């Protein structure tokens, strides 16, 4: 069976479902907006500290991280409704192809969220990293591929739990992303033209090293996910 046509079919059906239901992206966006809003009003603006150059980028990534788990849970809850997932598992397709299509679909939704969130960030924190926008979007995309690569496997496991398993998903997923978050936060010093956490994480990497590191992490997450996902479903 040819994997590529099936991949695009599954991706297409997922996007069609999202267009019809309008659930995953709006819910993620609402969650992320609330995080940034609370962060923006919770910091003393009169203290003389420029928020955007200190904790703002941290809140930005926290919003993406937790909104991503909302999206993953919603996406898999939709697959379980009516036993759709069972229908896919009992069809003769390679479940690894289904995994890659699911990663591609959720990555797309989260990247859309991230781009929207950049504007929101600019509004709340009065700062848009215009000169570094290309690099930031590239970093966000690479982070999201790895994040969804790990998240799709864990979401397939946890959505069977009572209450959708969103809390368990976060508990399992966030520690897995620590290596990625560490380099992303370091690099955010460059993207947001500031020093993150007072430089405690270390300075930004050379761009080429940073992107190589991200691609390597993506390859690890995707390979492990591709191999594990069919076992999880079965």
């Amino acid at each position, binding site marked *: 069976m040819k994997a590529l046509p099936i991949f695009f079919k599954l991706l297409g059906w997922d996007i069609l479902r999202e267009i019809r239901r309008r659930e995953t992206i709006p819910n993620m966006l609402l969650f992320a907006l609330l995080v940034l809003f609370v962060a923006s009003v919770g910091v003393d603006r009169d203290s003389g500290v420029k928020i955007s150059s200190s904790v703002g980028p941290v809140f930005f990534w926290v919003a993406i991280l937790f909104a991503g788990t909302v999206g993953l849970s919603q996406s898999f809850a939709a697959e379980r409704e009516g036993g759709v997932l069972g229908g896919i598992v009992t*069809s003769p397709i390679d479940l690894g192809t289904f995994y890659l299509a699911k990663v591609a679909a959720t990555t797309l939704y989260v990247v859309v969220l991230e781009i929207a969130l950049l504007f929101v960030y600019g509004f709340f924190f009065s700062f848009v990293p215009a000169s570094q926008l290309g690099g930031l979007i590239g970093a966000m995309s690479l982070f999201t591929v790895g994040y969804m690569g790990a998240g799709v496997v864990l979401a397939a496991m946890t959505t069977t739990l009572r209450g959708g398993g969103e809390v368990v998903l976060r508990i399992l997923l966030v520690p897995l992303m620590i290596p990625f978050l560490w380099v992303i936060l370091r690099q955010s010093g460059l993207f947001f033209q500031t020093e993150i956490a007072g430089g405690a994480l270390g300075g930004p990497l050379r761009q080429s090293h940073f992107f190589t590191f991200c691609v390597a992490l993506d390859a690890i997450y995707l390979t492990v996910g591709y191999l594990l996902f069919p076992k999880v479903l079965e």
Partner: protein
Amino acid sequence: MLPREARESVGEVNCLASPAARLDKVRKRFGYRDVLRGISLEIPRGGCFVLTGPNGAGKSTLVRILSTQWSFAEGTVEVLGSNVKREPARVRSRLGIVLHESFLRRELTLEENLHFAAALFSIPRSDQDERIARLLDTFGLTRRRRDTVGTFSQGMIKRASLARSLLNEPELWILDEPFSGLDPAGQELLAKVIGDFHQEGGNRTVVLVTHQLEIGRSLATGSAQITDGRVSHLSLAGLALSSHSGAPGEEAEG
């Protein structure tokens, strides 16, 4: 394995070398509870093999294992001559499955759902429209083909699920309580479709789980009663019932 007498009967009922399904000492456990306790069973090719038994006996677990949806701890399962653990894709491509879930996306129209299923089974686009039209007609769904499944009643969803399961023209049709949710006309229609499926299609086989013993009796060419994760009664000519499973015409326990 089956007792010797039963294996000889299999030979009388069916001339093909490999049965439709063969389970050998299959064990399935949920937590600390054994749902299937080393079950062995051969389902002959051709005909309608009915599985009966009380709730919680392990019938649905057995069909989920046959349909490759669930794994199992011990034993061997062969479906249509293929080992389900070694060649799951080969088995899946030859099965039609109706379980308690519909496998349908509620936000898509019925036609879109069937095209989605057809794509999963790599049915050529040129054949899809003809097959879908035929199955919609068979199950009386043609008028609702452009409605989203979310607007369907339970009975309509069941009909749609049945249509979906036949898209790939399966050799083995596994049906778990397919009559539940159907009105009398729908039940009569389904009984006819099941009969046609195995009578007109060479060695095509139906595995039917049902509590509706009257319908089961009319369709069965062989049967097994599952009790507490084991085969308690076996018949290769009609419906097997133990004394506590209800008289003909009644519903079994649960």
